[in-house]
């Protein structure tokens, strides 16, 4: 049976979700995303620059027929702003799946959880497929899945920090109790971070800076694809138990005496 990531009413072969920010230009964005194998890409909603309306648009480079466009609510500090942003995004006609993030503080970019819960309730009621960015907090994860979110997305570490999973024990608890996919969102630095998340049993990984900020974003996009795949396969294969002492790999019988 094919191993698919199910979000809302859609299924995906790729378990890597990538952002589209911080690339040198749209051509590099497109290339990196292509190489990453991602089928879902995040975008932000912003005012058009009226004095110099850029004739090129991100969606000229990313065909919404090929990719699921996942608008985010980055930069929103209140539930109201986040809901407003989601409604605008839906009007653009790229579907009803959104990445909900209500930021609590611009230094840490940690989420404002009460505001996230408030926005999630409204958005779920309005028919959005809500993927919320949260702390690595099992209680918040539980509340959001009870509200009806299609996944929960705990951070590995602060957005853009590249620190990798800071609290694997909390992620394990979140995984244990999850009834929806768990996607590690933010804080991944390199391919092994993504592999570790997947080996633990996470359903996917979402990242932007780790790829866009690498010296060679295209090569890192490939590394991340392989890291996520390797981690997923290792999880499905079932790793051996860790032991303190050696166990010989070669037969004990027939040793020259």
């Amino acid at each position: 049976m094919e191993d698919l990531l199910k979000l809302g009413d859609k299924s995906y072969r790729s378990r890597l979700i990538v952002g589209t920010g911080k690339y040198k230009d749209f051509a590099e964005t497109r290339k990196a995303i292509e190489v990453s194998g991602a089928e879902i890409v995040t975008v932000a909603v912003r005012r058009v620059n009226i004095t110099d309306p850029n004739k090129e648009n991100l969606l000229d480079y990313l065909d919404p027929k090929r990719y699921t466009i996942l608008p985010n609510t980055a930069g929103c500090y209140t539930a109201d702003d986040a809901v407003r942003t989601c409604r605008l995004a839906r009007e653009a006609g790229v579907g009803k799946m959104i990445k909900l993030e209500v930021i609590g503080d611009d230094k840490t970019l940690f989420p404002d959880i009460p505001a996230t819960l408030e926005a999630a309730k409204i958005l779920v009621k309005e028919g959005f497929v809500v993927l919320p960015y949260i702390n690595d907090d099992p209680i918040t994860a539980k509340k959001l899945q009870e509200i009806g979110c299609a996944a929960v997305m705990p951070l590995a570490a602060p957005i853009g920090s590249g620190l990798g999973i800071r609290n694997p024990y909390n992620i394990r608890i979140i995984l244990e109790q999850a009834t929806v996919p768990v996607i590690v969102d933010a804080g991944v630095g390199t391919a092994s971070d993504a592999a570790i998340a997947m080996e633990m049993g996470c359903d996917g990984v979402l990242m932007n800076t780790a790829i866009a900020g690498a010296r060679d974003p295209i090569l890192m996009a490939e590394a991340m694809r392989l890291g996520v795949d390797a981690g997923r396969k290792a999880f499905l294969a079932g790793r051996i138990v860790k032991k303190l002492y050696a166990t010989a790999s070669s037969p004990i019988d027939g040793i020259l005496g």
Partner: protein
Amino acid sequence: MKIHLNGEEKEIADGLSIAQLLEELQIRSGRVVVELNRDIVSREAHGSTLLKGGDALEVVHFVGGG
């Protein structure tokens, strides 16, 4: 007349529709979403929605983000 366009005051001709304003600004309507006084205006209604002095218009689109 004056309207607020993306947070800035702008002088435009009286009786302009949203579609006409976007055209004047050389903005492709297919790639943007418009909000008038906090209400979303669907693309189909751009032509029939006329602007009034003091209106607050937001024109947004997708940009790179994580």
